[in-house]
């Protein structure tokens, strides 16, 4: 039986939600256009209820889709694509927004919540605000409505409630059995099965959703000719938006740092950039809105920046979801053929906002007074400008695939590729913007809080600059002395460091002054200190990332390459043979073998102790499994595991003798190929970031490739070479006990002792057995992973006293490891926390101001 009812309810609800959003738009629009007070109220009421209905229906849609995913109704394409039986509940929530449709729903949901809050908290702004809100909802709902307009045959939106047989009608099974239901789904991309991925997308989408609020206020202000009044209610929301969007972006970065192996938290990926750029312009907008309160010059700029921010969010949506980025990004969703609709959405609001702005431009109050360089507005404005330029540079480069598409659509050829080394390319510009932001944040804040005149300039600015200069020199010295970073060799880095220290000094001194007065006003100073700390963390951790897995052994290097290019030939990866120790920086490393995780149990377990069931999420224990003295499973027990994940246990022994293990991971990701994840040694001073850059056996599909069988005939004491190891047949002795079979008096068994000597004279023992039981001969295969030798005792020649062994060799079990040291990366995370605190303080302050005015009836 197919569960078609729930899908039909869901789809119907979607259509209702679209219609109600249109009704709400119309109702609110009407309430502004007419003048009769009573009618205004009744239209407003109508529109309000239309929006509430819209909200309720959206909750219904979400409940339907979640039911389908949660109960794993694999007759639905969405459930089949994004869910599977193995997923625990908390990841089923992530399945919901893995696809385009679900993430649109998430966004729509946030808009509903925000819309309701705005209705409840506003008195006069409700109608114009909600016209913008409800029309945005109509556009978003249209993306997932999934209806075909019959007479023009145009499909609008892509519904999440499509059945498998509707999406893929050509699959033969549906011809013979239309009610066929797949047994299991493809599941959530295993890379996203991470706790950060449960909270990062909702945070980011809430960030995107909140950018609509200042935009809606700005349009409402232009429309109802309240050119100045919108600032006060919009400002706390702009701060909320910047906080949430910022936190969402950082969460994504932190996830990338822990899970992806591009070596850091930021990859300049187009999708990352496209979410960061609106944040920059939003922060610039906030600064202009704050300036405006003292100087009207910034009012027009505030309008422009608030509009630009929202349009950039739409642009990022377009980049992310239209498929235009193609292979330029790892994040982009699969193309659902929505490009046209997304462009319409983008251009509708772009044109509407710009047209309204131009129409009202002359009426927006402005201050024609010359701005003095001694005014605080000037310096804050400089900071905002720097933020905008930084945003401009990022978006200009990120849009390269868009230029190619436009030029090609015009019939020309354009083959621009993203910069080969993105980090270096972007940093070249962003370094300067970073310097600017840090300096202006210090100077701006000083001018803001202190009466700076020509005569007091040295007191307020020169003194902190000198302190910063001395502090910078000390930090440079300390960095070099403690071996954290050789920062003296790069003037630009020292400049950035100085700028950041200057920002900390000035903002710190302001913070000290304010706290003595009214600590509630200190949000700005705290936020700026957070930013400066983040910049310092970025400077050290990225600018002075050090490869610590340098191959200094001389082993595993080609003779000719060793000294080539002034000895600079790449030696950044270290080969580790199973069980053999290797020195890396301060640590002695030993690769201990491949591990797996058991769901619900802490720790990692030897893969060899389990029989992993292929294409399934179960494994059977081959022996009793214990962890820290607690029994986890007995022989034959089935445990839940993710067979696609292979963890490599790498033991670290530090000079003090402390031993711990890291577990970097390889994931055989069905959606993306092999995905590599690092593991980290965390310390205040620096993180050591380690990942397995190559594993020949897993790369070859997990099966070892054995060479041709060689027959070796030896007498006791003979020596042969096997796989670059020396093997000595030390003894052959009779044994009375076989592991699995009982031997009787009439049976006989002998065991050979073969000593294998490897690098550093480490020895391994191979003990093949030759057994006669009744009329049968048993010669079990012995395999040794460390040496890559497989051996079988095949014959005993009583005449010559010689023994024959069948031997195969393969590559020994090994991994290639890369490890990076990231100094002071924790300053970045710490700075983020400071930033969050600062923003939160500012939000409370600005909201209190809005509430006071509103309750006085002024807003």
């Amino acid at each position: 039986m197919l569960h078609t009812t729930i899908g039909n309810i869901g789809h119907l609800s979607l259509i209702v939600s679209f219609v109600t959003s249109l009704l709400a738009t119309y109702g609110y629009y009407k309430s502004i256009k007419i003048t009769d007070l009573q009618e205004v109220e009744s239209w407003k009421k109508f529109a309000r209820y239309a929006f509430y209905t819209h909200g309720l229906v959206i909750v219904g849609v979400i409940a339907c889709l979640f039911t389908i995913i949660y109960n794993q109704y694999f007759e639905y394409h969405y459930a089949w694509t994004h869910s599977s039986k193995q997923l625990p509940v908390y990841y089923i929530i992530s399945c919901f927004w893995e696809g385009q449709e679900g993430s649109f729903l998430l966004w729509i949901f946030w808009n509903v919540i925000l819309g309701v809050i705005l209705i409840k908290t506003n008195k006069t702004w409700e109608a114009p605000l909600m016209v913008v809100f409800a029309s945005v909802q109509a556009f978003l709902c249209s993306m997932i409505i999934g209806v075909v307009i019959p007479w023009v045959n145009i499909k609008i939106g892509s519904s999440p409630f499509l059945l498998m047989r509707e999406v893929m009608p050509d699959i033969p099974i549906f011809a013979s059995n239309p009610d066929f239901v797949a047994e299991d789904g493809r599941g959530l991309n295993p890379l996203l099965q991470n706790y950060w991925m449960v909270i990062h997308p909702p945070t980011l989408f809430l960030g995107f959703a909140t950018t609509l609020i200042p935009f809606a206020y700005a349009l409402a202000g232009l429309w109802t000719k309240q050119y100045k009044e919108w600032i006060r209610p919009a400002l706390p929301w702009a701060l909320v938006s910047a906080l949430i969007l910022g936190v969402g972006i950082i969460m994504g970065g932190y996830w990338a740092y822990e899970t992806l192996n591009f070596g850091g938290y930021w990859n300049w990926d187009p999708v990352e950039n496209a979410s960061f750029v609106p944040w920059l312009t939003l922060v610039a907008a906030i600064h202009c809105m704050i300036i405006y309160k003292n100087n009207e010059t910034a009012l027009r700029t505030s309008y422009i920046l608030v509009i630009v921010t929202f349009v950039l969010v739409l642009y990022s949506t377009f980049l992310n979801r239209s498929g235009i980025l193609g292979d330029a990004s790892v994040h982009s969703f699969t193309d659902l053929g929505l490009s046209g609709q997304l462009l319409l959405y983008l251009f509708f609001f772009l044109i509407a906002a710009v047209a309204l702005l131009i129409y009202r431009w002359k009426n927006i109050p402005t201050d024609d007074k010359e701005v003095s360089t001694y005014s605080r507005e000037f310096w804050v404005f400089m900071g905002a400008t720097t933020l905008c330029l930084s945003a401009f540079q990022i978006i200009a480069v990120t849009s390269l695939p868009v230029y190619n598409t436009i030029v090609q659509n015009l019939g020309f050829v354009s083959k621009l590729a993203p910069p080969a080394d993105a980090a270096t390319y972007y940093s070249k510009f962003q370094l300067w913007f970073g310097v600017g932001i840090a300096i202006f944040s210090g100077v701006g804040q000083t001018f803001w809080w202190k009466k700076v005149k020509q005569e007091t300039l040295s007191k307020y600015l020169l003194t902190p600059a000198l302190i910063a200069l001395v502090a910078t020199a000390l930090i440079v010295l300390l960095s070099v002395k403690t071996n954290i970073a050789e920062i003296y060799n790069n003037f630009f880095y020292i400049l950035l460091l100085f700028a950041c220290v200057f920002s900390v000094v000035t903002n710190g001194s302001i913070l000290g002054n304010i706290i003595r007065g009214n600590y509630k006003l200190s949000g700005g100073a705290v936020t700026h200190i957070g930013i400066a700390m983040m910049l310092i963390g970025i400077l050290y951790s990225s600018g002075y990332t050090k490869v610590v897995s340098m191959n200094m052994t001389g082993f595993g290097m080609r003779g000719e390459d060793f000294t080539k290019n002034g000895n600079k030939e790449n030696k950044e990866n270290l080969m580790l043979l199973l069980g053999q120790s290797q020195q890396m920086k301060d640590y002695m490393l030993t690769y201990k073998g491949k591990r797996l995780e058991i769901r619900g149990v802490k720790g990692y377990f030897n893969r060899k102790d389990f029989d992993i069931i292929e294409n399934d999420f179960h494994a059977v224990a081959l022996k009793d499994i214990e962890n820290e003295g607690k029994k986890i499973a007995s022989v034959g027990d089935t445990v839940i595991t993710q067979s696609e994940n292979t963890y490599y246990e790498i033991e670290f022994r530090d000079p003090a003798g402390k031993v711990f293990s890291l577990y970097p991971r390889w994931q055989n990701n069905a959606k993306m190929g092999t995905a590599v994840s690092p593991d980290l040694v965390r310390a205040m001073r620096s993180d050591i970031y380690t990942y397995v850059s190559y594993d020949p056996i897993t790369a070859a599909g997990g099966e070892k490739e054995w060479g041709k069988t060689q027959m070796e005939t030896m007498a006791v004491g003979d020596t042969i070479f096997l796989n670059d190891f020396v093997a000595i047949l030390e003894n052959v002795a009779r044994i009375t006990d076989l592991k699995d079979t009982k031997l009787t008096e009439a049976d006989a068994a002998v065991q050979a002792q073969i000593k294998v000597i490897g690098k550093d004279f480490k020895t391994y023992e191979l003990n093949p057995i030759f057994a006669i039981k009744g009329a049968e001969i048993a010669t079990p295969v012995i395999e040794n992973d460390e040496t890559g030798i497989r051996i079988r005792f095949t014959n005993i020649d009583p005449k010559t006293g010689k023994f024959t062994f069948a031997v195969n060799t393969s590559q020994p079990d090994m991994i290639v490891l890369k490890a990076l040291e990231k100094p002071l990366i924790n300053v970045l995370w710490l700075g983020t926390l400071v930033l969050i605190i600062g923003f939160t303080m500012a939000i409370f302050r600005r909201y209190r101001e809005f509430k006071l005015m509103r309750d006085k009836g002024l807003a």
Partner: protein
Amino acid sequence: MKKTHIFGLIIIAIMVAILVSTGTEAGTYSDFSVAEKMEKDGDADAIHVIGKLKKDASGQILGMQYDPVIDANHLEFLLIDEKGREQKVVYNQPKPQDMEHAEQLVIIGKMEGQVFKCQQVITKCPSKYQDGKVDLQGADKAPKTI
């Protein structure tokens, strides 16, 4: 001219500079012949080359060498660019995972004498779940298609 105008002009100048630099410094997708010409002209810029690994009739990869025991930081392979030219490529890093399965490779680097030295290899893997080729578990007894 007012100060604000000068300020505006400076901003516009910076923006233009950024755009120009984006245009000139962006990489281009190109081929080995161009890379060779660039080396002759002394142009040290890295370029993107799109190509396929050389394979024999049965799909075996030819000319690829990587042995971590000998050198974990040395990979050699033969790439055929979009114009059909075959070129030996050296990559001083471990072999990228899934390289053998890649439909197409994008390599970024430059010619150095007889070999193309690349700094980056981007693999474009065919998704296991392409449209129309669907692995429906339990759909029938036929072997699973990927």
